[in-house]
């Protein structure tokens, strides 16, 4: 049994099935992060000082130190988004070699992001700024943590297309290109979330 418009675009709607599916999924993701961001707004406006002062004082001095790391991470993620598009374009131009290079670079960027994040986390936890320290720290860990999980999820899918999933190219190149387009859309979204997280958690304090 063949599902129609699995690969081909349906004329009156202008999309193939999974492209519509990923946009709907991203809409739900917008609502998820919308819920998270609204919590940030509500807790922040309710707090007498921001970031709140807890048992170990304020996180402010530590935050100033980590701004360069976070800025570096922002650049890394944007770069990964660019290479993601390039990977897709390479497939469109039927160049599998280039595709591997660009997708590999995207994966490396994602890994670099997570490593920097790891050092950031451990530094904060080491200084006593754990999630339960105050509501800023709670938001910081929850929001960046969920974002990190999204990165890891994306890496698993990208890793699959870099490894065993690439076999589809031999028989169904068009379908494989679609898959890369879709995972690319997700990847840009995860990138975009960071573009919002970076200012609200690091800069606007």
């Amino acid at each position: 049994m063949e599902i129609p418009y699995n690969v081909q675009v349906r004329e009156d709607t202008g999309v193939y099935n999974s492209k519509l599916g990923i946009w709907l999924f991203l809409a739900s993701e917008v609502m998820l992060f919308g819920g998270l961001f609204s919590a940030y707004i509500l807790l922040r406006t309710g707090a007498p000082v921001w970031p709140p002062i807890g048992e170990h004082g304020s996180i402010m001095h530590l935050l100033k130190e980590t701004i360069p790391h976070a800025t570096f991470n922002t650049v890394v993620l944007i770069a990964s988004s660019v290479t993601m598009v390039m990977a897709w374009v390479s497939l469109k131009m039927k160049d599998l070699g280039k595709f591997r290079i660009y997708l590999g670079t995207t994966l490396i960027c994602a890994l670099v992001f997570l490593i920097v994040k790891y050092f950031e986390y451990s530094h904060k936890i080491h200084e006593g700024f754990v999630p339960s320290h105050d509501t800023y720290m709670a938001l910081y860990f929850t929001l960046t943590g969920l974002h990190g999980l999204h990165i890891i999820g994306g890496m698993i899918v990208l890793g699959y297309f870099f490894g065993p999933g690439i076999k589809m190219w031999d028989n169904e190149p068009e379908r494989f290109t679609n898959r890369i387009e879709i995972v690319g859309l997700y990847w840009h979204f995860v990138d975009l979330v960071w573009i919002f997280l970076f200012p609200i958690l690091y800069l606007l304090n």
Partner: protein
Amino acid sequence: MSDSHHEESFWRKYIFSTDHKTIGIQYGITALLFLFFGFSLMMVMRWQLAFPDQAVPVFGGLIQWLAELNGFASIGNLPSDLYNVFGAMHGTIMIFLGVVPLVVGAFGNYVVPLQIGAPDMAFPKLNMTSYWVYFIGGVIMLVSFFLPGGAANSGWTSYPPLSVIATTGQTFWLLGMVFLITSSLLGSINIIVTIIQLRAPGLTWMRLPFFVWAQFVTSFLLVLAFPPLEAAGFFQLMDRVFDTSFFLPSGLVVGGEALDVSGGGSPLLWQHLFWFLAHPEVYVLILPGMGVIAEVIANNTRKPIWGYKSLVYSVVFLGFMSFIVWAHHMFMTGMGQGMSIFFQTTTMIISVPSVIILSCFMLSLWGGSIRFNTPMLFALGWIPMFGIGGLTGLPLGLSTPDIHLHDTYYVIGHFHYVVAPGTIFAIMAGIYYWFPKMTGKMLDETLGKIHFFFSFIFMNGIFWPMLIQGMAGVSRRLADGGESYAHAQGTLHLNEFMSYSAWLLAVAQIPFIINLIRTLLRKKDAEPDPNPWQATTIEWTDTTSPPMGHGNFEKVPTVHRGPYEYSVPGDSSDFTPQTQN
């Protein structure tokens, strides 16, 4: 469809099937079992309300075993701690594991692809995944009953701070919810893509059966409203596991001791995020039901549904509005008058499309030659029941009368009229209506009518007295049904009446169960009628012997007309199928 002749192994065919029809039936059976389980919890609670602190008959031993396993003292009665558990889990199970999986998972899955002439859902593997994710969520919820302290006990709304300091059951509740939410998301994305992409040639938007429209709007509600609750669920999980203070205000004192947390959080934040889902959720429960009712009414009045376009525009408008009424659940939280005024205005506005839909259904009856078969009886019973549910909601949607009625039995009566008969009558109508499509066999009419009339009587016997008790001021969630409260004494005698009604409602389901089993065991006719209701929509136009094989239609149907062309003047029969040229 070469694949349909291919022999599939037992596991592929019945357990890990990617056929939307099998998955729909899987959803249906699982959800009906959960529905029965949730109802059973309530039957035990009703014993406690009618005869406080007396040992439960027959099941006393089981209750005592469970209570002692959870660490509560019991002599076979339902201790108040366990009463709280049962209350919270009754709501959770009925909504998230019973009704939504039935109306969206079962009916949406089974009927939508057939009504739009599609070979399957757009993403069959994803469809299978959503069922199994739902199943895991259900298992987590069930397992939590055996934890020390029992399952979640902070109400289905899980309001903090109570839920944050509650026993481990609450953590399981949150984990289970994450699975159920994920399942709903995957399922509803699938339904939307299927409806947009896989409509048969000629099936334009205004030719879609109303049921498909209802599923379409419902799926959008699920996609957009569930994620904020997921966010809230993560926060509460953080509060419980990592001692954060998202929902815990500063200076919180529990049991005479200050809680050792940083504070600075807001319990209201949870309520906002929760009701942002839970209000649209009400429409998730009711809209597919309305869709079923529209199909059944059009078919059994033998005339086009009255005001098809008004119905479609109303249901879409209802979908939009349902996102901006949520805080009418929170008038009593002290969130401020401005907020109350805004939300009571939007609440009054949202009642307009609901009334339009109900009016269209009633006007559809006018001048029809009505066939009083079982699906139609359930549909006709649905109209006043949903009407009562809707109208009793108006005083709650206005902030002033809500001061008196908030958190009383009136609220329970109101929303049960909407979601108990409102959805369950529609589900029953749907089961009787589509059963011949699923099996090729008609359910027995006599047993069906017995099932309907007794269900109708006892549903009212349970919920009508609640409205009276509530207006007298009896609070909900009292483990003794108000026995120890002076102002509740005048209406206390109603408790026994309601409880007997609830148990008799269970008895009234026996003819239904017998009917199901007897019909399933019966041998299929040599050539079952593929269109026993003489219906017009696409799922009935396929002439092969039901049920259809994997891949559905032999030939892709082409659609030439709207969904409800009954009694077209000049036509030889009183129904003109959508596929007829």
